[in-house]
């Protein structure tokens, strides 16, 4: 990615949209890049979905996920995607279901070995459906990628203190340090803690939007997905 701070001038660290939408990328000479973006975001949710929906063990789910991304995502996969019918997230999930159903049929034909053992599960005991698990893991992975992007961006632009403050405060799993603690620890003013956190958060939001832009068909779908992320 282009360093946004040098790519555009002006105040406010505003990010340009360097990310092509999925369809632009797939139509152009960039199918590999489009594919990478899809896999980075979708591997974990697809794995979790397969695992819960068909009660697979870890290994079987991994194999099937691997098989899906290796076989199903050819160029044609992107060309057949029609944003008027469904969003990309749903389109991909339906493709996973079709793929798994075919594998299941193949496994039955072979009778033993080879094919995967399936036992379909519609709902978990806590009422969560496989589709809910898919969405939840998709959202988690989206944030995880945006955090990775933020760290890379901080490292590339020499904003290490900003990153450390953000990491210590917003990524704290148990007790959060106070702003005063953070100010002392990094030898900065408390107002800087406030400013650094505000900067890191809005930068992360921009990076997350960019990640989403890369896996949606355009502004409309992007907006819908943003809304889902925060619903």
């Amino acid at each position, binding site marked *: 990615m282009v360093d946004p701070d040098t790519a555009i001038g002006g105040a406010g660290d505003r990010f340009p949209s360097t990310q092509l939408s999925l369809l632009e990328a797939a139509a152009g000479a960039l199918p590999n890049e489009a594919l990478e973006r899809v896999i980075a975001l979708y591997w974990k949710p697809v794995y979790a979905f397969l695992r819960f929906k068909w009660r697979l063990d870890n290994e079987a789910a991994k194999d099937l996920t691997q098989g899906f991304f290796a076989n199903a995502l050819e160029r044609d996969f992107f060309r057949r995607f029609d944003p008027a019918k469904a969003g990309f997230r749903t389109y991909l999930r339906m493709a996973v279901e079709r793929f798994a159903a075919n594998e299941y049929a193949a496994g039955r034909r072979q009778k033993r070995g080879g094919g995967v053992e399936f036992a379909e599960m519609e709902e978990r005991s806590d009422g969560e459906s496989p589709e809910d698990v898919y969405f939840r893991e998709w959202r988690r992975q989206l944030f995880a990628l945006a955090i990775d992007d933020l760290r890379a961006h901080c490292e590339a632009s020499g904003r290490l203190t900003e990153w450390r403050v953000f990491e210590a405060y*917003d990524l704290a799993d148990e007790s959060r340090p106070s702003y005063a603690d953070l100010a002392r620890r990094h030898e900065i003013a408390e107002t800087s803690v406030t400013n650094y956190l*505000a900067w890191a958060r*809005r930068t992360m*939001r921009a990076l997350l939007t960019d990640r989403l832009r890369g896996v949606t068909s355009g502004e409309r779908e992007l907006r819908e997905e*943003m809304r889902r992320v925060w619903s």
Partner: protein
Amino acid sequence: MELSDSVLQHLREVVDLPDLSGTRYELESEIGRGGIGVVYAARDRDLDRRVALKVMDAGWAGEARLIARLEHPGIVPVHESGTLPDGRVFYAMKLVAGKRADRYLEDHPSLGERLRVVQRVGEALAYAHSCGVLHRDLKPQNVMVGAFGEVYVMDWGVDGVAGTPAFRAPEGGFDQRSDVFSLGALLQFVLPADAPRALCAISAKAMHADPAARYPDAGAMLADIWRFQEKLAVEAYPESIGERVRRFAKRNEVMLWLLAAYAAVRFFLFFIGTR
């Protein structure tokens, strides 16, 4: 990076919070999320009053300008618009204390009160049309009824993301008549099950599948509702002779009673006279 549920939840909250430093507003709480933005209650420090702040992704600044142009008691006044440090845009507007029209109905208002809501909405719509602005997504969720009976139509000119098909004209495009369709659907929505037939006919005419068969504009539909309230014949409803007589009787109730009384007196006098 493995994210726990609690960290994810925290991030979702803080990453989306608008950074209002450098503005005159202080965030109070989130009111709700719509198709294109989030609405917050905020405090305007300079004027010491509460406002509603709508925060949207860049590219939607047009919405504020569109609404700011519309000055009408049925349209929420916009105070100011601006840009946040992260590039998102916001506008500040009057904070409406009240209920969305769909929730308002849960209090079982009278037929007259229900009609009043539709009339206020229709007036705002007619005004906006006269300014060349279409609503495009009129539905009960976009109408607010205030604590003192004020009615506000929200979300002008924005092609809603999760559109509500029941309130959308079937032809798909947008013009005055597609807004009239939505106004008809709103009327149908607020009418109780035992609503008079003439009112159902008004909403049916407004919602006609053929745009040319609808009321040409919101004003014409309002005029028909007004005729109903004045117990005049409604354009949308060809009534039977019986219904006509009954409506005539109702409208002219006092006069008919007077006539009857007069006839009775004459009758009585006639007998006295001939005795």
